[in-house]
C-alpha cells in the first residue's frame, strides 16, 4: 500500500467459547483515513473493534496501534493508551444518569484537571460540531436514537483522540439521520485528521465515505482495497456481499439434511 | 445543587444511625457513662453456685450494686470462688455481711444478694465474704424432706 498504517493486525486468531471467530486476520489501517470494515452479520466485526481497543485479547497474533502492541500492555498502560482512542458504540452508550452536557464533559472531568469554564467551552464546541448545542440540558432518555448517537460522538471526540472507531453507526437510522452521520464522520475526518475505523454492513453508505475498505467473512479477510478496487473484485463472495444477492457462495439455506428426508418423502411413493 | 441535597439527606441518614446506636447503648443495654467509673473486686466462696453466671447481678436490698465477674473452682477446698465487682461508691459493706444466692421469682434468674451485717468495719477490695449461703436446690430440698432429715 505504501501508506503509513496506524493499526496493523497480524495473523490475529480469536475464539470465544469454542467458536473460532477469527482464524488469521491480517489487516492494515492507514493513518488519517476512513477505513470501512464490512461483512455479514455475526462475523465478529464488533469483536474486531474490541480487539483493537484491548477489551479482548487475541489467542495468537499481534495488534499494533500507533507502534504499540496492544495485547502486551498492562491494564494500567492500556487505560492510559485508550485516552488516544474514541469509540462510538452501536447504542450510543450514553450514561443514562447524566445530562447531555455532563456526558460530554465526563472524559474531561476524569482525565484532565481543566477549570470549569474551559470544560464548559469545550463541551459546547463539541456539541456545536454535532449540532446539538441546544440540547445540552436534556437527559439521554429525552433524545431520539439518532441524537443519542450524535451526543455519543461528541463525547468520543471530547479528548481529541487520534483514532475513532464507529460500531455500526448507520444501523437503525432513518435516511436523514444517516445523512447527518455520514456528513459528521466525513467532516471529523477531514477537519481533525482522525484515523477512522468504521464497522458496518450498510454497503452503500460505507463505500461512499471510506477511503479504504475490507470485507471479512468466515474469520478471514476476503477482500480489501479502495471502493473502486472492491467493486471490480474477482471474488464471487465479495460480489455477492456488495450487491446483496440472496444466493451464492453464501447459501440461502442454513446447512441441513436433504429436503426430501426432512419432509418424509424419501425412498418411496406415498 | 442536587449533589447538595443528596449530601444533606445522607448526612441526616448517618446521624439517624448514630442516634439509634446511642439509643441502643443507653436505653436498651443500660450502658451509662457512670458505669465506666471505678469498681472494686470482692470474693465469696460457695458450696453450690446453682445457676449464677458471669455478668449476673449483685444486689443489696434489691438495688443492683455490682456484677459477677468470674466463677472458678477452688481446687483446695472444692468450693466455687466467685469474684464480683462492686460499684466504687458502695464502699461501706459491713465486714460480717453474707453473700446469698437467691432466685428472682420462682423460675427467674439467680443473683447474689448481700445481706447486711452489723459490724463497723467494711469489706476492703480483695476481701472475701465471711459467710455465704449457697443456692437453694429444690431437688435437694425435696429429697431431704422425703427422707425426714
Amino acid at each position, binding site marked *: 500500500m505504501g501508506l503509513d498504517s496506524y493499526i496493523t493486525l497480524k495473523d490475529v486468531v480469536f475464539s470465544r467459547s469454542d467458536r473460532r471467530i477469527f482464524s488469521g486476520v491480517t489487516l492494515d489501517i492507514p493513518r488519517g483515513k476512513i477505513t470501512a470494515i464490512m461483512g455479514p452479520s455475526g462475523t465478529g466485526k464488533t469483536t474486531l473493534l*474490541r480487539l483493537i*481497543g484491548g*477489551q479482548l485479547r487475541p489467542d495468537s497474533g499481534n495488534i499494533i496501534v500507533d507502534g504499540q502492541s496492544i495485547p502486551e500492555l498492562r491494564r494500567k498502560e492500556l*487505560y*492510559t*493508551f*485508550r*485516552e488516544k*482512542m*474514541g*469509540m462510538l*458504540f*452501536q*447504542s450510543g*452508550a*450514553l*450514561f*443514562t444518569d447524566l445530562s447531555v452536557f455532563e456526558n460530554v464533559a*465526563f*472524559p474531561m*472531568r*476524569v*482525565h484532565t484537571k481543566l477549570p470549569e469554564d474551559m470544560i464548559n467551552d469545550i463541551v459546547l464546541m463539541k456539541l456545536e460540531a454535532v449540532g446539538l448545542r441546544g440540547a445540552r440540558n436534556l437527559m439521554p432518555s429525552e433524545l431520539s436514537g439518532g441524537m443519542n448517537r450524535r451526543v*455519543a460522538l461528541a*463525547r*468520543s471526540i471530547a*479528548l481529541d483522540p487520534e483514532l475513532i472507531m464507529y460500531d455500526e453507526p448507520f444501523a437503525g437510522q432513518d435516511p436523514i439521520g444517516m445523512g447527518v452521520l455520514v456528513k459528521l464522520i466525513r467532516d471529523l475526518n477531514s477537519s481533525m485528521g482522525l484515523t477512522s475505523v468504521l464497522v458496518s454492513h450498510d454497503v452503500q453508505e460505507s463505500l461512499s465515505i471510506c477511503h479504504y475498505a475490507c470485507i471479512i467473512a468466515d474469520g478471514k479477510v476476503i477482500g480489501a482495497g479502495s471502493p473502486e478496487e472492491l467493486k471490480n473484485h474477482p471474488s464471487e463472495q465479495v460480489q455477492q456481499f456488495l450487491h446483496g444477492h440472496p444466493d451464492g457462495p453464501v447459501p440461502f439455506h442454513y446447512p441441513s439434511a436433504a429436503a426430501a428426508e426432512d419432509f418424509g418423502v424419501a425412498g418411496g411413493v406415498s | 445543587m442536587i*449533589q447538595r441535597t*443528596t*449530601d444533606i*439527606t*445522607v448526612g441526616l*441518614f*448517618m446521624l*439517624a*444511625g448514630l442516634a*439509634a*446506636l446511642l*439509643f*441502643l*447503648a443507653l*436505653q*436498651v*443495654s*443500660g*450502658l451509662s457513662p457512670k458505669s465506666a467509673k471505678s469498681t472494686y473486686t470482692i470474693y465469696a466462696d460457695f458450696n453450690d453456685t446453682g445457676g449464677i453466671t458471669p*455478668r449476673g*447481678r449483685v444486689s443489696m436490698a434489691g438495688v*443492683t450494686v455490682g456484677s459477677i465477674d468470674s466463677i472458678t473452682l477452688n481446687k483446695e477446698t472444692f468450693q466455687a470462688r466467685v469474684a464480683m465487682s462492686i460499684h466504687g461508691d458502695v464502699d461501706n459493706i459491713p465486714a460480717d455481711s453474707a453473700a446469698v444466692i437467691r432466685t428472682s*421469682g420462682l*423460675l*427467674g434468674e439467680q443473683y447474689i444478694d448481700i445481706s447486711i451485717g452489723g459490724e463497723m468495719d467494711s469489706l476492703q477490695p480483695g476481701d472475701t465474704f465471711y459467710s455465704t449461703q449457697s443456692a437453694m436446690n429444690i431437688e435437694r430440698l425435696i429429697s431431704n424432706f422425703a427422707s425426714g432429715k
Partner: protein
Amino acid sequence: MIDRIASLGRSGADVVISIGRAGRFLAGVLSGVPRPVTGFPLLMKQLYSVGVLSLAIIVVSGLFIGMVLGLQGYTILSDFGSEAAIGQMIALTLVRELGPVVTALLFAGRAGSALTAEIGLMKATEQLSSMEMMGVDPLRRVIAPRLWAGFIAMPILAIIFSMVGIWGGMLVGVEWLGVFEGSYWGNMQASVDFWDDVVNGIIKSVVFGFVCAWIAVYQGYDCVPTSAGISSATTKTVVYSSLAVLGLDFVLTAVMFGNF
C-alpha cells in the same frame, strides 16, 4: 449413573469457578486507593440510593416486627407470670438476630436487586464498555462506590431497625397490654450487654452488608447482557444473598453466642 456423577462434578466445578471469578472481581474492585476528590460524591450518591431510599421499608418492617414480638411474647410469658421479661425478650431477639438478619433480607430485596438491575442494564447498553474505552475503569468508577455504600449502609439500617422494633414492642407491651414501663426498660437494661449483644449484632450486619453488596454488584457485572439475563441475575441476587445471610448468620451466631 456415570452421567449423573459427571454432571454433579461439573456443577460442583462450576460453583468453584464462579466463586473464584467473584473473588477476582472483588480484588479488582478493592485494589487501588480510591481517589477522595472524585470518589466522595459518587459514594454519597450511592449511599443515598442504597441507604436513604431503603429507610422507609426498614422502619415500617421494624415497627411491625417489634409489635408482633410484643404480642407473641406477652401471650407466652404471661403463662409464667413473667410479662415483665417482655422487654428483655424483644430487645435480645432484635439486637442479636432479627435486626441484622431481617434488615439484610430486606436490603437484598430492595437495594441488592436494584443494584444488580442497574449495573446489568449499564452493561447491556454498553455503558460499561464505553467507560472502559474512555480509559475509565468501571470497577472503580461504577462498582466500588456501590460496594462501599452497601457496606456502610447496612449496619446503619440494622441499628435503626432494632431501635424502631424495640419502640414498637413498647407500644404494644406497655401502651396496649399494660406492662409496667419501668420493668420493660429495666429488665432490658439488666440483660442486654452493649458489647456482647449490641456490638456483636452490628458486626453481623457489617458482614451481611458486605456479602449482600458483593453478590449484588457481581451478579450485575457478570450478567448476560440481555433482558432475560438481567432478570435472572436479579433473581440470583435475591436468592443467593438470602441464603448467604441465613447461612452466615448461623455461623456467626455459633461463634459469638455459642459458648453459653
